[in-house]
């Protein structure tokens, strides 16, 4: 009987102890992190998971850019499933901040003073009108003037510092060297290379409910007036830089210069499968300045962002991942990419990471002279009048501008088509569209 009582007591004690253990808060448990990235970012994210093993339980999942936008409303409905940190296209920050979606956390309160300092001007895209940060920009895609030094020397051209000088080169090419080109204008090329740097008011969010879209503004018409004659003469190609027809022109060595984003050198001008411009000819110069301006602004084409979910249980851990991707040598320089190259492929938007990347690009013997100086000069000169908007302003270039350019080859008409299309999109999403500030 005594034995039974003792056994019962022991079982009771064990039960209480085990229940206490079970109900103990899991203080010792590691923070957990669910990361969604696209295929180019996957190796870096997996490297981070490896480094953090034992400290943070990192789960990395492959998704396409913008995938969260398609799924977040499903997650909102069942109130779970949100990834903690997501890589996406730049405009996502506005869409995710929309209260209906509510999936971009304000991160200023998480950032240390030094980290904010490290952003410099490179993370301005992520700054809301309240002065707070809502994302971490992965890379800058600022436009610069890419040019073929050999062709410039052969034709006796000097590097243009003003837009009028660039267009004079275009006129000279049309007259003396027909068949040579100054670039392609479709996709978002005309926008990031000419309209945005010219401060043409498209997608300028004035407030949460007002957006300025005016394709007839003088800042837009000066672009179309300058480009149209050169389109007509074949100096500018009205289609896509990625089209087989234009790739053929470039591969025949007829591309003299091309205003394009900082990633153009590595991913469009250089690869054998693309323009295949030979070693020792290319470099980049700062953007030419529009007449009557005091700053030679750039536009951007691309430049992804990391957003952190307000539902993340460990937001600082999520932020640490984003900062690792943009600032840590193990990703920026060392990580092995899917194409077996190493390091970050594009201009990091974080000063420490950017310094590491500079060493990499400076050491590259492909370029006649390192394009880094021009990229760095333009990095702080992206015109900030263009803000992220809640509608798909980037997709509209393919949906409205490109088809009209292909049909009529009239750039003003194509820009008007874009403005009409985006005005409709903006109104559907509750913006008041205005043509004046």
């Amino acid at each position: 009987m005594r034995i039974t009582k003792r056994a019962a007591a022991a079982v009771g004690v064990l039960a209480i102890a085990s229940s206490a253990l079970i109900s103990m808060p899991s203080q010792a448990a590691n923070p957990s992190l669910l990361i969604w990235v696209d295929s180019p970012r996957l190796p870096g994210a997996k490297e981070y998971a490896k480094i953090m093993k034992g400290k943070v339980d990192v789960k990395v999942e492959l998704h396409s850019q913008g995938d969260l936008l398609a799924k977040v409303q499903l997650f909102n409905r069942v109130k779970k499933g949100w990834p903690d940190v997501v890589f996406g296209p730049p405009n996502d920050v506005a869409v995710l901040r929309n209260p209906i979606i509510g999936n971009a956390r304000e991160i200023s309160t998480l950032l240390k003073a030094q980290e904010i300092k490290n952003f410099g001007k490179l993370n301005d895209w992520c700054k809301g009108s309240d002065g707070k940060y809502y994302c971490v920009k992965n890379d800058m895609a600022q436009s610069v003037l890419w040019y073929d030094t050999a062709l410039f020397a052969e034709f006796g051209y000097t590097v243009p510092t003003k837009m009028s000088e660039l267009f004079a080169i275009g006129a000279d090419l049309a007259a003396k060297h027909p068949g040579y080109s100054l670039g392609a204008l479709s996709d978002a090329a005309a926008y990031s290379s000419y309209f945005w740097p010219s401060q043409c008011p498209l997608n300028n969010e004035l407030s949460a409910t007002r957006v300025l879209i005016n394709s007839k503004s003088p800042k837009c018409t000066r672009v179309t007036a300058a480009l149209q004659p050169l389109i007509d003469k074949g100096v500018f190609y009205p289609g896509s830089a990625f089209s087989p027809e234009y790739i053929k022109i470039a591969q025949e060595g007829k591309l003299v210069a091309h205003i394009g984003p900082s990633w153009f050198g590595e991913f469009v001008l250089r690869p054998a499968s693309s323009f295949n411009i030979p070693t020792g000819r290319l470099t980049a110069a700062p953007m030419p300045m529009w007449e009557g301006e005091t700053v030679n602004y750039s536009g951007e084409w691309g430049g992804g962002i990391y957003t952190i979910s307000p539902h993340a249980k460990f937001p600082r851990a999520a932020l640490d991942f984003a900062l690792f991707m943009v600032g840590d040598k193990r990703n920026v320089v060392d990580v092995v990419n899917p194409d077996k190259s190493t390091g970050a492929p594009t201009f990091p938007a974080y000063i420490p990471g950017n310094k590491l990347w500079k060493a990499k690009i400076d050491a590259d013997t492909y370029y006649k002279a390192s394009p880094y100086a021009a990229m760095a000069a333009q990095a702080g000169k992206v015109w900030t009048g263009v803000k992220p908007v809640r509608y798909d302003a980037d997709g509209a270039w393919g949906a409205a501008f490109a088809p009209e350019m292909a049909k009529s080859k009239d750039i003003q008409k194509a820009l008007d088509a874009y403005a009409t299309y985006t005005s409709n999109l903006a109104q559907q999403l509750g913006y008041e569209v205005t043509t004046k500030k």
Partner: protein
Amino acid sequence: MSTTIKSSKKLKSATRQESRVGMFFVNSWLIFFAVISIIPMAWLLLASSKTDPELSSRNPLAFGSFKGYINAWNNLTFFDNGVIGRWVINSVLYNAAIVVIATITASLAGFVISASRIRFKKTFLISTLIMMLLPPVALVIPLFVLMDKVSLIDNPLSVILISSLYPFGAFLSYIYYSTTIPPELYESARLDGCSDWQLYTRIAFPLSGALLGLLAFFAFIGNWANYFMPYVMLYSGENYTLPLGLGFLFSSTPAINPGVGATSVPIYKPEIALAGALIAFPIMVMFLISQKRLIRGMLAGSIKE
């Protein structure tokens, strides 16, 4: 008499000539459609033998080199330590489960609607037709919420169960069982004391080989390349199907989306062509294996005696 024989011979030779002309046109027409069907498939197979620049510069039906296939395959498999193999295995497993479940349930449902004595058969039949008309997009939110309630989100079972819902198969089975098996057979079996279950297992099922082949084929075709449902239900890489994984892999490359621009993923048009061939190949094989059974199944019930 001789005149009659002569004119008969003339008539025969004219008929033969007419039939030759007719055959010529019929054959030309068939060859034309065969060429139209084969050229895209041949292009798909040849595209991955070339490099990306060769795809733009060379004849579309020119052969590149065997090295081209190896390069494209290496580029696909190098990504994330050959995760593509995992996606292939997932696709095979999910589809095997879907084909088995969908075929059995559709056959049973069709039999019940056509031959059993349950009530509301007409209501079930109309419900099946309505389900056939409903676009899958309309069901996304209810299905997502339902799967969440049973904790199956991001679980392969969610895709398998939802994709096994096969109203077209149920309707096809209903037609088959209503037209191919005479009702008298069921009646006499019932007189001998057969239950509905025995009617199905002992009479209907053994007589429905052609139907089952047809159901399995359409279930496979409909789900092998399905992107949408796995896209909605799954979000862990280890659970992805081949079309879903490849979709995510390709979407960040300029080969499929020029606007993406910069990428360090070596996926170009030949890699995408090879992946397309990989996805299309099992469907081609399935079709070739089952074409006799398919034709027999499709003709079943077409003659009523």
